[in-house]
């Protein structure tokens, strides 16, 4: 993967996600960080992106609205959206997948969880 956009209003969360992604072998990837969905959407339009990792609960534009914007945009809709959140149970996970989320992981994440979640994408 050449470019990944990470959206989370917590700098700590963004750093932790980036570090986990580097640990699972993506140390040569360009990581672009955004503190909310609106900024993330702008970054997605700037350049080709292989993966969007987003939190749900963010100010200005939350992750669910960002997911809807991405899936409604013909140029962005192919980007897999991995949601990493503290606020998802089975009902929410199914709802997000119906909206087009590639996968939903609950915080706290770990490299092991990411390896498993990203395996289908990396195998392709």
């Amino acid at each position, binding site marked *: 993967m050449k470019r990944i956009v990470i959206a989370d209003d917590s*700098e700590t*969360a963004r750093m*932790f996600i980036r570090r986990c992604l580097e640990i699972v072998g993506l140390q040569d990837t360009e990581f672009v960080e955004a503190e909310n969905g609106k900024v993330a959407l702008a970054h997605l339009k700037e350049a080709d992106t292989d993966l969007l990792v987003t939190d749900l*609960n963010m100010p200005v534009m939350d992750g669910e609205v960002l997911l809807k914007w991405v899936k409604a945009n013909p140029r962005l809709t192919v980007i897999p959206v991995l949601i990493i959140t*503290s606020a*998802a*149970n089975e009902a929410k996970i199914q709802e997000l997948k119906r909206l087009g989320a590639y996968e939903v992981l609950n*915080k*706290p994440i770990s490299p092991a969880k990411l390896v498993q979640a990203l395996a289908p994408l990396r195998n392709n």
Partner: protein
Amino acid sequence: MSDQFNQAVFDAVAETFENMTFLEVAPGQKDQWDAQGAEVICVSLLINNPFPGEFKLRVPVPLAQQMAEILYAMPAEESSQTMLHDITAEVLNTVAGRVMTEVLPEDQTYQLGLPEIDPLENIVSDEISAEWFLQVDENLIALYYLGEIPA
């Protein structure tokens, strides 16, 4: 307080600290907290749905600095107050989500607010529905829950 809620909170705190910082969590005592006397960082987070509630977390500054040192691989004295607040807020955000996922039925969605820095204040004791004092490495943290306790 239900045993399930109590256990869910302990498990969520332990999983969050151990996963993010490799720090072990053990039960602590209120009198230890009262005696600790360290400067603390206070954050709160509202539960908006399916019932109103609020978590309040108190973390001693030395523990927040220790977490910054681990997470950001930098000397503790170089960590900024903004960074310490952000780390503490992210811990509470993660803990609250884990607890709600654990105690609510699978088909019940929920909505959390955004974590906020609290002014340092004494919480009125009759507002507290539940409280936990937990040992994290060499420091004690306090977690309070205000509002309706899920059955």
